[in-house]
């Protein structure tokens, strides 16, 4: 069996890609894509730990299940927000939205 560490490092890589995306994307939808990567990174962790520790009640998997649900909810809300602001401003670029500053 491959060591657990490899899973964790993989998850960390995905997590960092997500963080990188969050920090550098100006398109709100791509931002959301990056967020999904972060959530999936966490899920990889959870499932891997669950597997390696052999948790009796499957906590890791259940948590991952909940995270998927939350990701769905968050994406819905996020996308609706994007669409709502797109209707008003005709833009989905984050750095266009700086009416509120200073």
């Amino acid at each position, binding site marked *: 069996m491959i060591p657990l560490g490899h899973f964790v490092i993989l998850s960390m890589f995905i997590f960092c890609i997500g*963080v990188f995306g*969050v*920090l*550098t994307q*100006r398109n709100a939808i791509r931002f959301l894509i990056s967020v999904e990567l972060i959530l999936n990174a966490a899920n990889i962790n959870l499932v891997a730990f669950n597997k390696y520790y052999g948790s009796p009640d499957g906590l890791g998997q259940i948590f991952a299940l909940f995270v998927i649900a939350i990701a769905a909810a968050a994406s819905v809300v996020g996308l609706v927000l994007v669409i709502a602001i797109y209707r008003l401003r005709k833009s989905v670029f*984050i*750095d266009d*939205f*700086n*009416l*509120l*500053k*200073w």
Partner: protein
Amino acid sequence: MVKIAHWIPVFPFLAFWLNMMVGRRLGKGAGYIAVAASALSAVVSFLVFQGLFAGGTSYSLGTWITINGNPITVGIIVDSLTVMMLLVVSVVGTLIQIYSIGYMAEDPRFSRFFAYISLFMACMLGVVLADNLLLLFIFWEGVGLCSCLLVAFWYEKPAAAAAGLKAFITTRVGDTGFLIGILILLASGHSLRFADLGGLPGHDFLMTVAALLIFMGAVGKSAQFPLHVWLPDAMEGPTAVSALIHAATMVAAGVYLVARSYVLFLDHPLALQTVAVIGAISAVMAASIACKMNDIKRVLAYSTMSQLGLMMLGLGVGGYTAGTFHLMTHAFFKALLFLGAGSVIHAVHTQDIREMGGLLNKMKVTGITFIVGSLALAGIMPFAGFWSKDEIFLAISHQGNPVFFFAAALTSFLTAFYMARLIFMTFFGAYRGKHHAHESPAVMTSPLVVLAVFAAGLGFIGSPLCNGVFQHFIEKGDEVVALNYSMVIFSTVLSFSGIALAYAITIRGFALPPAVLSNISWLTRLVENKYYFDELYDFLFVQPFLRLCGAFKRFDALRVDGFVNGVAAFVGALAQVIRKAQTGLVENYLLMQAGGMLLILLTIMGKICRLF
């Protein structure tokens, strides 16, 4: 009987408040109130004088304040010196106030004038009666204030206002020394009572310093070198004020102070020596300046300074009696001279003697009394000044310092010269003025007459002819003063030669050869410019002070306040930076968040191991 002495200053003080509050409604009554008050003081003074023969005393009215457990009493001292001064002040004061009723009759602030005069009388009598230095200091400042207010009485004139300021501040410099002197005594745990000043234990040098500092107060008040600059300017005040304050009483208070704390000076010869030196310098210097003055009042002012110097010299060489005697006689004849000058000014509306002349015919009473006063001042036998000056000469010769003797002799000669010059230019020769001159009213001339009588006759009480009544009274000594004929002849010759020189120059038009004149022109310039003291002080003190004030003001606004505002501005600028960090762009926020978190992570980890 003497325990009524403390009432003496009360009358003028009440008169002050009365005149201050309702004076304007009283009209001439203001003057009468003031005169009545000081007359009452004079009467009580006489009663005290009578009571004194039963023995002098000092008594306390209660504790004024307790300083570090050292009670300062409101103490009254009644001894011969006090009584002498009381009489001089109250009598001369009363006469001058009578004169003032006439002299100030036209003034719109008539009542205010008498209010100030009354306050002055109260304070001056307080100075005389005080039995300790602090109490004396309090009244001392009071007379200084009145002097200032009265000098600046015609405050519309810029010169008068400036003179008032100058008088107060200059004397205040001396008083600061006085105050520090008192502080030294207090801090050394000594009593401030005059009676306890003799044989003070403690550090000899410190006590000498204390004595010198107290003398500094006297120097300021008595317009002695180097704090004399205010006195000539003080002549901007009404002439009656000059007579009362700047001739007879207040300026003499300095001499009185030295006499009063004489034991302290006797214990510390260096201090006494300083008194003599300062006195000698003042006497000669002032007399020399007086020779070149053309303002009648300024001549008299310098003369006053010179005579006060002579008194100081007398005290300084150990002539306690001589000094006080001259103080008394001088008060009368100098008051007379000032009042006479006032009468003349009243008549010719100028103070410049070059615009006078031949006034003797037009103003008989004034002229004669003025001449009497002048003779007394010049020290002509048998007028009062002669006897008292003679005493000083004797004291100096007794002490034996030839420099002092020379100074006194020179002063005497110059005194005779400038007084004669004044007389000749004012009362003899042809009238050079434009204004029609006339004799002053009786209310002004009668005090002149009374004073002239004193000026002529008062000397006898201290002369060997009367067995030295005065000396016995003051010193309680048995020493019989014999008439020293050589001294009499010497001083008379000195005086007459001065008069003769004045006669030659003013009447006969005698002049030194131009070559000689040009050789001594620096001297005349020096004397004419009063030895450049005003300029010197302006350069040394006034201008630096003003510059310092300006510098402080700028420093305050630019540096101190600038620092404060700078701090505020710095916070403001910092706030602006922090505010601008809030760019409104979420990506910046996110970077900050992620980066910040990373930093926190690294910081905490850095505590355990070094990652990089």
